[in-house]
């Protein structure tokens, strides 16, 4: 009896990651996270009493404008730029306002409300920071309250980017609380890098080396955040690899499958190894801001590739019928065996 050998490729799993949410969603998650993270870092810097010196004061259309504090708080502008990418992904874009109708159960609707609130509060804080210190009645209890609420909503925005993916329960690589954690840390690390670049830009445009002291403090914090992000990413991938069926498939896609260039090149090399090396070099050559700018660009690009990688590797849980088919294929494939007469 001749044994029928089914070709190897027919016996492999048919792996198809989701293609509904593509680069538009990746850009939105990235900008929302980075903007919220930058805002949080900026507010913390302000609360600690650190500031850029000297404070510029020039007049714009007859109103006094001070950029020294606004340079830290422009994160909400990024979030506001990211939101239209979400609208771009919709089928019927003009109906985007309907998306807030079901906050009782839908995370998309809740996110709409969270992001709108953060954008409004954040832009209010940004606008207020443009005015010289002491305007609008100074730092009254009301403004302090608004500051705290805006930071809470900034955290909510950064965490929401991960919670949105987790809420779609049947994609195993997304269904973990580690994902909002990873996106939060990534938001803080890209946000802190953005703050560093803003401070550097401010220092280069308006003054001499006055801002470098502040920048070096921020770099210290940022290195800790990169380390935490690397650890969280490693733990996330490890737990998913050892977990359920399609989670392992997703991790394999990223590490050795179609997405390996995105992962190893985009996320690991550009997002972690290059920035850490360049920052180490910068510590030895503190006079060249070019190294810092290069670090920044690589890190920010790496943050985007991380979101893209997580989205592109989302493989849905197998239907019971698919498992049945796999078993049927394996059972109907005669194994090549040595029969006694030969």
């Amino acid at each position, binding site marked *: 009896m001749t044994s029928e050998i089914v070709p190897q490729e027919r016996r492999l799993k048919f792996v198809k990651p989701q293609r509904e949410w593509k680069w538009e969603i990746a850009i939105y998650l990235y900008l929302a996270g980075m903007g919220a993270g930058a805002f949080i870092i900026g507010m913390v810097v302000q609360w600690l009493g650190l500031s850029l010196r000297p404070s510029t004061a020039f007049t714009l259309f007859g109103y006094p404008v001070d950029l020294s504090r606004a340079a830290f708080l422009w994160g909400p502008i990024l979030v506001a730029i990211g939101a239209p990418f979400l609208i771009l992904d919709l*089928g019927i874009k003009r109906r985007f306002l309907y998306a807030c109708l079901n906050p009782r159960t839908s995370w998309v609707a809740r996110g709409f409300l969270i992001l709108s609130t953060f954008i409004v509060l954040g832009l209010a804080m940004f606008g207020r920071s443009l005015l010289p210190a002491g305007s609008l009645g100074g730092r009254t209890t009301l403004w302090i309250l608004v500051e705290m609420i805006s930071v809470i909503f900034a955290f909510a925005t950064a965490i929401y980017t991960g919670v949105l993916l987790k809420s779609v329960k049947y994609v195993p690589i997304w269904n973990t609380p580690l994902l909002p954690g990873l996106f939060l840390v990534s938001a803080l690390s890209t946000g802190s890098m953005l703050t560093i670049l803003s401070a550097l830009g401010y220092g280069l445009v308006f003054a001499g080396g006055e801002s470098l002291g502040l920048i070096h403090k921020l770099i210290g914090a940022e290195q800790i955040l990169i380390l935490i992000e690397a650890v969280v990413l490693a733990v996330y991938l490890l737990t998913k690899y050892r977990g359920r069926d399609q989670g392992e498939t997703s991790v394999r896609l990223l590490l050795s499958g179609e997405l390996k260039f995105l992962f190893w090149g985009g996320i690991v090399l550009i997002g972690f190894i290059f920035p850490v090396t360049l920052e180490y070099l910068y510590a030895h050559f503190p006079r060249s801001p070019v190294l810092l700018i290069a670090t920044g660009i690589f890190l920010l690009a790496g943050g985007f590739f991380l979101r893209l990688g997580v989205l592109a590797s989302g493989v849905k849980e197998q239907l019971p019928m698919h498992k049945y088919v796999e078993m049927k294929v394996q059972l109907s494939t005669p194994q090549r065996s040595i029969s006694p007469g030969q």
Partner: protein
Amino acid sequence: MQGKVIMIDQEKCTGCRQCEMVCSVFHTGASNPSRSRIRVVKWEHIGFYLPQTCQNCEKPFCTEVCPTKACHRDLENQRVIIDKNLCIGCKTCIIACPFGAPSFDKMERVTIKCDYCDGDPQCVSFCTVKAVSYVEADQLPIGKKREVGAKYMELMARR
């Protein structure tokens, strides 16, 4: 009355895809299987064909994730439907559905799903081998039980 649902018997499906054609004709006016609400998933190398359509879950996850409440359970007719005028095409239900039942209609730019053709499913009427049938939800396994029983009878009679 529980309401009727579409029951799929995958052993009978021959993969002719007639259901896809009539579904698209009924819903869109033209024979366009990519816009059909029922899809036949084929494994040609083992000859296994699986018609797949909305399961009409009692606790549908698609209605939970829908941000506009376009996807909702129509209690009158006991089915889950998507209101075409509210759907914004965010595709969250497509990712959320564990069965992959909804799909995105590129021409209408909304998500589409089986809606039982308002009481008279066309795929059921046109399937020649009766791989899809429209039965009461609590009567779902009765047909299969009868078939298995008949098979037993036949086997017993041979001995």
